[in-house]
């Protein structure tokens, strides 16, 4: 079941990651100002950083901009990275800080962001659709549509979560970080991480259970509390 999927998924995700020693060497070279070495790290982690920011904000264009900003900031601040802690957690900390700042800034002026949304709604739709990778079989358009609908439903549910819970859920369940790494990323205690993940999952379950018709048969969630 899902519990057993966790470590396997994590291992798969890390398969194409650099060996730890190589990573440390590249970090050391980057700290010496070597952009080429840093770019190897970028290539290894850009999917993770972009993916997590995209899931936190739900907008691929903004996520792309913030991802670029995150790597620029990371290169600038690479000398502040101390070995020992997870480099992925350090990078994601920069990325999630940028995403949270952006979210708070746009939430502070909701009228502005709503206007922007209305104005760019049409233009955004295909962009968002392209970002949601097609996982259904090519020959079955109905299943494709369902998959996209479901992805959008989950994305909407994520965006309805409080920011701290959303960040924890994205890092844990989507990016596969350990609780320790999430604590490092969000600079919180393990207990806080645990509670945020639990509350976020419970809320998301409630939200998704209101749209049972979109859920696959084997993912049906009960409303029973």
């Amino acid at each position, binding site marked *: *079941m*899902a*519990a057993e999927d966790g470590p396997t998924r994590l291992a798969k995700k890390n398969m194409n990651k650099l060996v730890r020693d190589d990573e440390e060497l590249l970090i050391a*070279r980057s700290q010496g*100002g*070597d*952009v*080429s*070495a*840093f*770019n*190897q790290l*970028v*290539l290894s982690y*850009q999917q993770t950083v*972009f*993916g997590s920011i*995209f*899931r936190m904000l739900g907008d691929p*264009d903004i996520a*792309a901009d*913030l991802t*670029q*900003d995150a*790597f*620029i*900031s990371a*290169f*600038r*601040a*690479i000398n*502040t990275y101390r070995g020992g802690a997870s480099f992925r957690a350090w990078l994601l900390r920069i990325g999630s*800080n*940028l995403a949270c700042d*952006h979210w708070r800034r746009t939430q502070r002026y909701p009228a502005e962001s709503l206007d922007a949304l209305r104005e760019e709604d049409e233009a955004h739709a295909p962009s968002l659709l392209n*970002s*949601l*990778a097609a*996982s259904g079989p090519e020959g079955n358009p109905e299943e494709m549509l369902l998959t996209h609908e479901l992805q959008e439903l*989950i994305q909407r549910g994520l965006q309805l979560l409080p920011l701290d819970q959303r960040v924890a*859920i994205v890092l*844990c369940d*989507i990016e*596969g970080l350990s*609780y320790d790494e999430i604590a490092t990323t969000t600079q919180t205690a393990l207990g806080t991480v*645990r509670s945020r*993940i*639990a*509350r976020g*999952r*419970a809320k*998301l*379950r409630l939200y*998704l*259970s209101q749209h049972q018709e979109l859920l696959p048969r084997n*993912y*049906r*969630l*009960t409303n*029973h509390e």
Partner: protein
Amino acid sequence: MAQDDRHFITEQLSAAIDAQLTSAEQAQLDAHLSTCEQCQQRLAALRGTVALLRALPQPVLPRSFVLPVSLNATATTAIPETPAIAITKSQSALTSAETEPVSIAAYRAEPANIVAHAPRSSRRANYVRTALRTMSAFAAVAGLLLLLSGVFTTSYLTGATSSAPAMTAQQPGATLPHTDDTNQPAPAFATPTAPAEQQIVQATGVATIQATATRTAQPRTPSPSVARPFLDLGTIAGRMSVGFLLLLLGLIGVIVFRKRRYQQEILS
């Protein structure tokens, strides 16, 4: 067991999914689940939610986010002894083909530690910038108004219209004894010399009084203002000069302290 009868809270069930329970807690949960259907369902629903999240595909990368290799130049200035390291084949291919033209020299120039300290300091810097920008804008507007008032005055007088009611400063300029020294520098803003004091008074209150008083008399001989001091607010040329300077300073200020959106977003 009495303890097995108690339902587990969501946080414990959620932690169980990630194998974050202690072995004792896990044993308790297993024992409880064997008898409690409600907790089984709750755990299954949470697992289902997690499975949905994990089943989400990775979003397609819109582009590569590698940094321009040209950054090497600015980066190595910090640590000059760093040797240039040969780039591997795949790396050179990627960096040459996918490098985005992002100007980063400005970011690199500032000291780092963005993660911990940048938001607060950059916010403070933003406030200062905003204040300076606003002040520059005000100066530019004031300068423009002065300049325009000078232009209109000139056009009024050269047009030789019969009434010139708004020309408050010009009329007393004709009636009051003025210093005719062309070389006197900036008396309106300089240390108060006798003529300067006179002009300040003239530029503020007396000017309007004089204007209203002389409205009936209307001395319509506009004295040529070429001989007036450079920054004399009482003369058209002086006002226009001050206006021009203010406008220039204001515009420079606005340009220098203009919004740097991209940078702001990164640092905040």
